[in-house]
């Protein structure tokens, strides 16, 4: 099975990268100013000495460095990400509880940005010498240059404070006790602003990419043939140009996964969306480094999984790509 081997290879590569991140995390803790025990406990400065001594013993911080490294790595291999002393819960449980909200937000934003970006990009490509095409590209450039957190804040001001159309904070109405369809509708309403603001930046990227890619594809010989056959420009645009132009966009979309995670940290912080991005902000505020590094590890894992998926989609979309290339 071609795919089975391919997936195995990718998984192996993923494990190597994750292993390197674990080691990287370990040395980050060592690098940090102050007592590693205090850092792991999320306490900077004055703390109970007895508590710190216990911690040192528990984490083996009195052992040589390589023993500590081994303990740390083998702990994470067993999915032990340590304990968040600030939140009084294991790091893993905290992250897993918040993961679905992040997946919902980034997934929605991803689909939204891809759909609107390809639409706007192909419109701009079809109107390449017209003012309407230039307007689309100017808007794309502006969205590209806009700070994500700022656009999120401005959306709150406009759509929830002044117009009062949409809720600005959280994932559902607190204490409403909704269920079934009403609950889905409630979450959807809360999702509109975060997902749209997160999507804007990526929409701008896909718009620019789609336009460039389509303009390139329109120079190809098969497009001339199609034109010579007398096909309508619309059919050529959609069937011949767009389809071939989509391939580089899939690759690009895979590369954007990391950016999407970063964007989620900002949007979730502004909208109090209960995902891992917001959790990262909370960890940051409380100087809860153990939790912070755990989230960092998870976000990298998320990106890797997403990269593998786009890689497979790419191969499905373009059977010419052979294994190993």
């Amino acid at each position, binding site marked *: 099975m071609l795919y089975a081997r391919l997936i195995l290879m990718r998984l192996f590569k993923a494990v190597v990268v994750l292993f390197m991140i674990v080691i990287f995390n370990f040395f980050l*803790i060592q690098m940090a100013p102050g007592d590693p025990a205090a850092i792991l406990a999320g306490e900077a400065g004055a703390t109970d000495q007895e508590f710190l001594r216990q911690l040192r013993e528990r984490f083996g911080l009195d052992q040589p460095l390589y023993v500590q490294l081994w303990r740390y790595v083998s702990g994470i291999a067993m999915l032990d990400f340590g304990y968040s002393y600030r939140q009084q819960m294991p790091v893993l449980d905290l992250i897993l509880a918040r993961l679905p909200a992040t997946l919902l937000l980034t997934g929605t934003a991803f689909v939204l940005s891809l759909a609107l970006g390809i639409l706007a990009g192909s419109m701009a490509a079809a109107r390449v010498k017209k003012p309407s095409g230039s307007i689309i590209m100017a808007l794309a450039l502006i969205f590209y240059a806009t700070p994500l957190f700022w656009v999120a804040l401005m959306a709150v001001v406009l759509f929830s404070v002044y117009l009062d159309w949409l809720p600005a904070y959280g994932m559902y109405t607190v204490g409403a006790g909704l269920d079934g369809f009403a609950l889905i509708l409630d979450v959807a309403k809360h999702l509109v602003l975060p997902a749209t603001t997160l999507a804007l930046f990526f929409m701008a990227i896909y718009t620019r990419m789609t336009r460039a890619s389509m303009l390139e594809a329109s120079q190809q010989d098969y497009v001339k043939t199609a034109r010579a056959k007398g096909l309508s420009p619309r059919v050529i645009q959609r069937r011949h140009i767009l389809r071939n132009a989509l391939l580089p966009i899939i690759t690009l979309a895979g590369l954007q996964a990391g950016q999407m995670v970063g964007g989620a940290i900002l949007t979730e912080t502004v909208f109090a969306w209960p995902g891992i991005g917001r959790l990262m902000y909370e960890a940051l505020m409380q100087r809860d480094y153990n939790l912070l590094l755990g989230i*960092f590890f998870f976000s990298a894992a998320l990106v890797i999984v997403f990269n593998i998926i786009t890689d497979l989609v790419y191969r499905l979309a373009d059977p010419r790509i052979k294994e190993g290339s």
Partner: protein
Amino acid sequence: MSFFARFAQNRGALIGLIILLTIILMALLAPFLYPDSPWRMVQRPFLAPMEVDGFLLGTDTMGRDVAAGIMHGAWVSLLIGLVSTTVALAIGVPLGAIAGYYGGLIDDGLMRFTEFFQTIPNFALAIVLVAIMQPSVTSIVLAIAIVSWPPVARLVRAEFMSLRHREYVEAARLVGQTNRTIILRQILPNTLSPIIVLASLMVATAILLESALSFLGLGDPNVMSWGYMIGAARTVIRQAWWLSFFPGLAILLTVLALNLVGEGLDDALNPKLSRERS
């Protein structure tokens, strides 16, 4: 056509240049127009823009002058953008040059290393680095440089790979020039124009990154920055939207201007390529 004539043909690039020069001027004039520290409380808090003479953009939650903050912040944003891009170039250019010039195992090793950094989510890595090193201008610059060098390395590597077998390189090898001389004197100067274009776009991205870090409270506590101003005003957004609006507008304009200038440089430095593209 001269370099500037080609640059000026792109109307967007000219607009970008004008905006950028204005912002640089703001940064330079800040110490003269607002000699006081931007952290000083000078008026009643929550003044709306133009409400009191001399406070064009109003005051913030602590009664600090918003206009002064924006002027002083311009300096910080531009400085961090420029320095972190320079550091990123100092990491990415040598790595890319060595990988592209020597190829083989060295290339493989260096590219795996680069890929590793590209896989890690940028912003999350920057947050972790600044949080652990403690927020300061130095740690912010380092963190931004560490997350932004991989595209430089890839670009330089690709350029070196396409140039290393050119005739003038072979000729230099024949007359006995060392690898070092060939890399620095023969190939590197020929890769400068794409590097310059990329660098101008990187300054823009670095400014966005810095503002996002400061927004999350990871800014240097001693310098006034646009991201910090937005972050500090976030909780009072319902009462005073302008406290977040103007610093954000400043970031938007700066980043937009740098992108426009970057595109103009691309047109001017690579005339053939960009004509094909448009």
